[in-house]
């Protein structure tokens, strides 16, 4: 029986993992670029890999929720909403569940911050960054593209910047989050479904490719 080698220090292991990691759609970056279009009827697609994502469970309205919000510097969102901006945000996932989103590399410090705020109260926070990758869909025709795949009303009268829903695009569960009025959206999708979703979106974008 072989004795497992002693694991390297956690920091060293993390650095190696960061250097060697691959995002689900990195091999298609050039294709996304080629099949994106600018102009008045343009729509662009790119991957935003490795966003920090933490799943936060906290009873709504309690003292734990208040101290977490204070530690994050962001209010916890109402249903179907996001607070913050594209760099630091909290997304509503359910009545006692949110997704904290931040730039790559922030997981450990955010976990510490939130756990400190939850100390003595109830709730949990878990790093789920590896669960999903993120697609950024933007441009004047971005809403038209999504409307081919989605049953939620995305018209500006019903859906705008800061709105965020979990729904189906085609046959896959996503977190759909509108960032700005252009419109620009983030679509967060489980890594194993990312290729399928990219194919769907590119197909829906095809009619806008030649202006």
């Amino acid at each position: 029986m072989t004795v497992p080698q002693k694991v390297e220090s956690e920091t060293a292991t993390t650095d190696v993992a960061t250097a060697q990691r691959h995002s689900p759609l990195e091999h298609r970056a050039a294709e996304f670029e080629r099949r994106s279009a600018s102009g008045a009827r343009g729509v662009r697609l790119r991957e935003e890999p490795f966003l920090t994502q933490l799943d936060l469970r906290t009873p709504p309205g309690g003292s734990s929720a208040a101290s977490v919000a204070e530690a994050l510097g962001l209010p916890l969102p109402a249903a179907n909403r996001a607070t913050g901006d594209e760099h630091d945000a909290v997304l509503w996932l359910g009545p006692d569940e949110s997704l904290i989103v931040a730039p790559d590399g922030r997981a450990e410090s955010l976990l510490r911050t939130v756990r400190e705020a939850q100390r003595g109260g109830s709730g949990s926070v878990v790093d789920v960054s590896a669960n999903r990758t993120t697609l950024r869909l933007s441009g004047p025709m971005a809403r038209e593209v999504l409307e081919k795949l989605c049953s939620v009303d995305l018209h500006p009268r019903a859906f705008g910047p800061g709105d965020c829903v979990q729904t189906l695009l085609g046959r896959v569960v996503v977190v759909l989050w509108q960032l700005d009025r252009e419109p620009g959206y983030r679509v967060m999708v489980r890594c194993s479904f990312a290729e399928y979703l990219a194919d769907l979106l590119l197909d829906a974008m095809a009619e806008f490719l030649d202006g």
Partner: protein
Amino acid sequence: MLLVRCPWCGDRDEAEFRYGGQADVDYPADPHQLDDATWGEYLFVRANPAGSFDERWVHTAGCRRWFSVVRDTATNEMRPDIPRRRESR
């Protein structure tokens, strides 16, 4: 297609949900005391009214929460379940 109202997310397409069957089917207090027919009844036999039916749904593609509604099985009209005592079941 039905429009189903999730109590948390609002109106969503039926495709986002899974059906959970009749609501408030109590687990037997002591299953080991049941004969096969009674256990079978508990597992498989459900009410089948033409009209109001209390039932469970789960918002699988959304907030993933379970909830109850009253659906009219003849018209598919759905309204929120009002919590109440169900001593007759």
